[in-house]
């Protein structure tokens, strides 16, 4: 049978973000996969150069809705390093606490999405219900469910009271109880195990070669966790286990994430027990001296990196963001080779992709202009032409279908 090329996207089958996977099929099997990304490119890096450091914190926080604290912390770490700012210990602990809460809600979200992709919607309902507890505690602590606005140059913007921290512990207890159940589901439920085992395999060698990060890499026995290897915030004083698995498939990625949740609960208890007293912020200069720094951060999805270059003014010379998904995307094509077409959604979802993170920059459109309107037929023709340019042509198929109808 001839090979068939199918575009999956830009409206994506798994997640609510645009990107295009162009899959070449040999029967049901995928023989080749190509990607077109960039639909979410918003010009963040260029925009950062035109704004002050403090404004940039808010912009960078909006690179991603889910790991918003990851990006803003990674950015302020770099700027504070250039400015030579030592932030107070209490601020470090508060940043770490928010970081771990963020990991919990991100991993629970992923577990739900993964359940949904394989038709296990009960799991989606359960995990997202439990995730609400974390979202509510975020709203109580920071005033917002996402984009917490906690970071500022030289510390954090809010202090937490003892009562608030007690509430956090209650939420951790609930989530831990629930997670124990999810661990049972993930490791013992035959439907789930059979559906996920052997899907989207990525060998250890390929994972290393392609620079895979985070849980995706750790499920292929890549022993890498920035929290341990390149300690930042308070992680140096805290004890936790880096979860490594060698299943190399989607099942392994699920196991790594649920077990990481347990580590996060332990970490939060330790953070709250050790939380030092004192101020939460030091005064930061408006202008940052010339210099450069490269900052790394273990976001829920993997290593996040920010490079900042300062030129002595109140605006950065260059800000470079690399979100974990960008590092992991290269491995998706490898994972899907020789897999079934039906495995595409779960295999893609298994890297926990975030395309707004990946495509950060540029694409500034002016508000003026006449504005074009398109009729339905024109839009359809535009679509047909666009796909034909990509080498995807349905003319033959349409002709065959028309013949059949006659």
């Amino acid at each position, binding site marked *: 049978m001839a090979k068939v090329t199918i575009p999956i996207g830009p409206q994506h089958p798994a997640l609510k973000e645009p990107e295009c996977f162009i899959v070449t099929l040999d029967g049901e099997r995928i023989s080749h996969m*190509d*990607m*077109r*990304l*960039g639909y979410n*490119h918003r*010009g963040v*890096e*260029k925009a950062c150069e035109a704004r002050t450091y403090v404004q940039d914190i808010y912009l960078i926080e909006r690179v991603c809705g889910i790991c918003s604290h990851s990006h803003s912390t990674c950015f302020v770490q770099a700027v504070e*390093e250039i400015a030579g700012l030592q932030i107070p210990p209490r601020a470090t602990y508060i940043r770490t606490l928010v970081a771990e809460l963020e990991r919990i809600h991100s991993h629970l979200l992923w577990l739900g999405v993964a359940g949904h992709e394989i038709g296990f919607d009960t799991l989606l309902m359960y995990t997202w219900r439990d995730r609400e507890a974390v979202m509510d505690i975020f709203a109580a602590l920071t005033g917002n469910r996402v984009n917490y606005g906690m970071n500022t140059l030289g510390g954090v913007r809010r202090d937490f009271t003892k009562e608030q921290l007690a509430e956090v512990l209650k939420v951790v207890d609930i989530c831990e109880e629930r997670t124990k159940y999810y661990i049972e589901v993930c490791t013992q439920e035959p439907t789930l195990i059979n559906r996920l085992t052997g899907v989207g395999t990525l060998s250890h060698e390929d994972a*290393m*070669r*392609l*620079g*895979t990060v985070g849980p995706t890499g750790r499920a292929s026995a890549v*022993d*890498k966790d*920035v929290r341990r*290897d*390149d*300690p930042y915030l308070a992680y140096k004083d805290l004890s936790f286990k880096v979860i490594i698995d060698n299943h190399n498939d989607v099942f392994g990625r699920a196991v790594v994430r649920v077990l990481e949740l347990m580590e996060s609960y332990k970490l939060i208890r330790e953070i709250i027990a050790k939380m030092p007293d004192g101020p939460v912020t030091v005064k930061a200069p408006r202008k940052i001296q010339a210099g*450069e*720094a*490269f900052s*790394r951060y273990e976001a829920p999805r993997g*290593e996040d*990196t920010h*490079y900042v*270059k300062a030129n002595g003014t109140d605006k950065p*010379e*260059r800000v*470079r963001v*690399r979100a974990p998904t*960008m*590092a992991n*995307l*290269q*491995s998706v094509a490898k994972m899907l080779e020789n897999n079934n077409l039906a495995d595409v959604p779960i295999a893609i979802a298994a890297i926990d992709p975030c395309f707004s993170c990946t*495509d950060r*920059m*540029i*694409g*500034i*459109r*002016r508000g003026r*202009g006449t504005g*074009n309107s398109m009729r339905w037929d024109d839009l359809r023709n535009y679509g047909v*032409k666009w796909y034909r*340019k990509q080498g995807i042509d349905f003319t033959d198929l349409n002709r065959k279908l028309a013949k059949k109808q006659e």
Partner: protein
Amino acid sequence: MANEEAIKKELTDKFPFLADKIVIKRERRLFADVGQDHFREVFEHAAKKMDFVHLCIITGLDDGDNLLFIYHMARMDGTVLNVKTTAPKSNPVIKTITDIFPGGVIYERELVDLLGAKVEGLPPGKRYPLPDDWPANQYPLRKDWNPDMLEGKDGRKEEVKNG
């Protein structure tokens, strides 16, 4: 900082021309300035012989008359070596590193689209991240670029009109 000093020593022993070009910024962060002529050998040595097995990212930036490229490479123990090299804006040609780090292909495509770098040996594929109808010779991350340049003779509107 013994570890960082050891890395610095190993690099300068192997490449004497790097003697005053390596800076240890802090624990686990080294920056090395390498000329375009020697870039490839230093980079390959670091990646293959010195355990810098993970390419975090390539940063490209507009540095006046030159384009500056920083290759951030990490060891599994968390040490990051930032290798810098430059190419003149008039002819910004660099060689691909995708033979050593295949995952770096998307970072190199970004350099091509956003800074106008010419990457020798970059495998063919779809552009990233700008749209297919982005006008030629417009590189948004260059300092002399601003959104007004999208309009005019070669601007975006013309492209849209012409389909």
